[in-house]
C-alpha cells in the first residue's frame, strides 16, 4: 500500500473558526492506526456546529466513506461556507441524494410480555410444524412401503444397497473400537467389585447381560446417530439449498420414496447387524480384560455365556437395533427436509437432528426396558 498523508482536521483561528481539512480521506487511511479516533476526538471538542466555515482544499484524495465522516460532522447538511476542489463535489452530491431516501423505521422494542409471547408462540408453532410434518412423513412412508410391496422390482434397491454400504460397512471400524474399549472398561470395573465378594464367576452374567441386552444396541445407535444421522440431515439440507429437492418434485420423484425410504430400510437392516458386531467386539474386550484381571479363560467365558444370558435378551437387542435404526433414519430425514435454503438453518437442522435422534433413542431404550421387564431373566 502506498503511504499517504494522514487525514487531519485543524482549526485555523480560534475566534472565527475555519476548519481546515487536509490529507487523504480514504477509508483505509481512516482505518489506519488511531486516525479515526483522533478525528472523532477533534470533531467532538472543537469545530462541531460553531465552525463558521470549512476548507477542504487541502484534501489529497477522498472516497465516499471519508466524505461521509465530514458530512456527519456537519450535522448532515452543507455548511454555509465551504471551500471545495471540484473533484470532491460529486461525493457530497451522492451523499445528499442518498440522504433524501427514506430510512426504514427502527425496529420497535417489544415489551417483556410481548417478547415472551412472540418467542414462545414461535416455539409452539415450530413444534406443531414438526409434529405435523413428522406424522405426514410417517404416513407417506407407510404408503411408500405399500407401493414397494406392490411393485418390488421398481423399488430403490440401488440406493438401499449404497446406503447399507455407507451406513453399515463404513461404520464397522468405529463401532468395533468403541465396543471393544467399553467391554474392557466394564469388565475391569465389574471384576474389581466382584472379586471383593468372591463372585468372580458372575462376571460372565454381568457382562453378557449388560452388553447384549443394553449396551451393544445403545452404543451402536448413538454412534450411528452421530455419524449417519448428521450426514443424512446435511445431505437433504444441501439438496434443499441447491434446489435438488425442488427438481425432484418437478420430475414427479417423491422425496419420501426416493430419499427417505431407502435410508430407513438401509438403517433398519444394518442396525441389527451393527448391534451383533458391537456386541461381539465388546464381549471380546470384556473377555480379554477378564483373562488379565481375574484369570478367567476365554473358553470358560464362552461356555458359560449361553447359560448366563437367555436367548430372549439377544432377540431384544436385535429388535432394539431395528427400532433405533428406523428412528434415526426417520428423524434425520425429517429434520433434513425441514431445512431452509440458508447456511444457518443447515447448521441448526443438523444439530437438532443429532441431538433429537440420540435423545429419542435413549427414550426408546427406556420404553423397551419397561415393556420387557420380565422377559429374559
Amino acid at each position, binding site marked *: *500500500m502506498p503511504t499517504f498523508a494522514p487525514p487531519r482536521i485543524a482549526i485555523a483561528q480560534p475566534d472565527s473558526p475555519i476548519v481546515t481539512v487536509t490529507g487523504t480521506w*480514504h*477509508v*483505509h487511511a*481512516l*482505518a*489506519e492506526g488511531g*486516525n*479515526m479516533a483522533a478525528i*472523532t476526538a477533534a470533531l467532538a471538542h472543537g469545530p462541531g456546529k460553531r465552525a463558521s466555515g470549512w476548507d477542504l482544499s487541502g484534501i489529497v484524495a477522498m*472516497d*465516499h*466513506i471519508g466524505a*461521509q*465522516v465530514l*458530512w*456527519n460532522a456537519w450535522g448532515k447538511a452543507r455548511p454555509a461556507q465551504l471551500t471545495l476542489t*471540484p*473533484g470532491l*463535489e*460529486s461525493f457530497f452530491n*451522492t*451523499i445528499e*441524494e*442518498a440522504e433524501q*431516501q*427514506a*430510512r*426504514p423505521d427502527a425496529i420497535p422494542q417489544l415489551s417483556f410480555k410481548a417478547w415472551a409471547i412472540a418467542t414462545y408462540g414461535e416455539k409452539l408453532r415450530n413444534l406443531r410444524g414438526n409434529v405435523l410434518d413428522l406424522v405426514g412423513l410417517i404416513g407417506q412412508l407407510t404408503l411408500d412401503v405399500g407401493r414397494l410391496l406392490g411393485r418390488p422390482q421398481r423399488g430403490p434397491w440401488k440406493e438401499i444397497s449404497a446406503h447399507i454400504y455407507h451406513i453399515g460397512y463404513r461404520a464397522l471400524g468405529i463401532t468395533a473400537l468403541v465396543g471393544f474399549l467399553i467391554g474392557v472398561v466394564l469388565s475391569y470395573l465389574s471384576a474389581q467389585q466382584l472379586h471383593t465378594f468372591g463372585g468372580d464367576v458372575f462376571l460372565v452374567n454381568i457382562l453378557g447381560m449388560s452388553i447384549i441386552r443394553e449396551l451393544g444396541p445403545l452404543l451402536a445407535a448413538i454412534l450411528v446417530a452421530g455419524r449417519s444421522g448428521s450426514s443424512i440431515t446435511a445431505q437433504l439440507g444441501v439438496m434443499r439449498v441447491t434446489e435438488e429437492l425442488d427438481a425432484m418434485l418437478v420430475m414427479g420423484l417423491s422425496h419420501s420414496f426416493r430419499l427417505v425410504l431407502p435410508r430407513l430400510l438401509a438403517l433398519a437392516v444394518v442396525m441389527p447387524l451393527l448391534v451383533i458386531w458391537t456386541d461381539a467386539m465388546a464381549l471380546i474386550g470384556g473377555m480379554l480384560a477378564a483373562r488379565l484381571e481375574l484369570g478367567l479363560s476365554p473358553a470358560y467365558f464362552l461356555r458359560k455365556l449361553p447359560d448366563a444370558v437367555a436367548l430372549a435378551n439377544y432377540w431384544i437387542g436385535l429388535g432394539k437395533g431395528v427400532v433405533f435404526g428406523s428412528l434415526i433414519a426417520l428423524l434425520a430425514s425429517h429434520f433434513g427436509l425441514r431445512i*431452509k*435454503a*440458508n*447456511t*444457518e438453518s443447515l447448521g441448526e437442522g443438523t444439530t437438532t437432528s443429532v441431538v433429537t435422534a440420540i435423545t429419542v433413542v435413549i427414550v426408546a431404550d427406556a420404553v423397551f426396558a419397561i415393556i420387557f421387564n420380565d422377559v429374559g431373566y
Partner: protein
Amino acid sequence: MSAGPAPALTTAPAPAATVAPIISVRGLSTVFGDVVVHQDLSLDVRQGEILAIVGGSGSGKTTLLRQMLGLERPSAGTVEVFGEDVQRAEPAKLQLLRNRWGMLFQHGALFSALNAFDNVAQPMRELHALPEDLIRDAVHLKLHMVGLSAQDGLKMPSDLSGGMVKRVALARALALEPELLFLDEPTAGLDPNLSESFVELILALRKEMQLTVVMVTHDLDTLFSLAGRIAVLADKHVAALGTPAEVVQSPHPFIKEFFLGARGLRAMQGAHIGAGEIDREIDKNETHHES
C-alpha cells in the same frame, strides 16, 4: 466528478510505457490432472480500463480470474496485482491487497445468514476502526449507489430477486472503495432490461470511483457496452487482445464464430452508440500504449 474517469489516466506521467500495469500475468500455466487449461499465458491490465476476458466453456476464464484473486494456485508462472505476487506475498501485504480490490461473484455469494445491510457492512466492520453510526450511513450510501432502497437492506438474501442479489453483492464488493473490481459474469441470469441497467450502473460507478474493472462474461451485449479491451482465451493462451473493433477482425476461428455469428453481429450493431465513448477513450490511450 467533473473530469470523469480520466484523472487516473490523464494525470499519469506521459510516457505510458513506464506506467506499471495493475495486474500482470506472466508465463501462467494451469494443469488439472491431464487437462492443460493455460499454457504460458501472459496478460496485462492497465489502470482505469475495463478488460473483458472471453472464451469458450472450459477455456479457463473463471480459473484465470480466481488465480488473479489468489483463490487458486497456477501450476507455473506468476500473477502480480498492484506489483505484489498474489501467490507469494506475505500475509500482511496480501491483506492490504485484498482491501484494494472487490469481487462480484457470479451468484452473488452473499452470506445467507446475514441480511443485505449486514452483508454490505461486513467488510467495513472487519476494519475494526469505523464507528457503527458511520458504517450505517456508509452502507445506506452504498445501497443507494447500486439503486437499492434502505428498506431492501432489511431483506435476507433468500428473499431477494436475482437482480437484487447482484446489486447487493456489487455494493459489498464496493464497500471498502476498491481501486480494482473483478466481475464474474456480471449480467448472467438477468433479463435484458435488468442487465442493461446493471451495465449502466457499473459504468456510472466506475466513473465515480475511478475503478479498474476485470470481468469475465459470455454476454455479447454486456461485452460490447462495457469492455474497453477484450482478451480472448483460446488454445490455452490469449488468442487476441485489443479493443472490440480490433479483436473482431482477428482471423482466429473461435473469434470468428463467437463474434461474427448472428448473435455477435446483432450485439455489435446495438452497442455501437453505447460503446463508442469508451472506445474513443481507450483509443486515446491505445495510441501510446500499443507498441
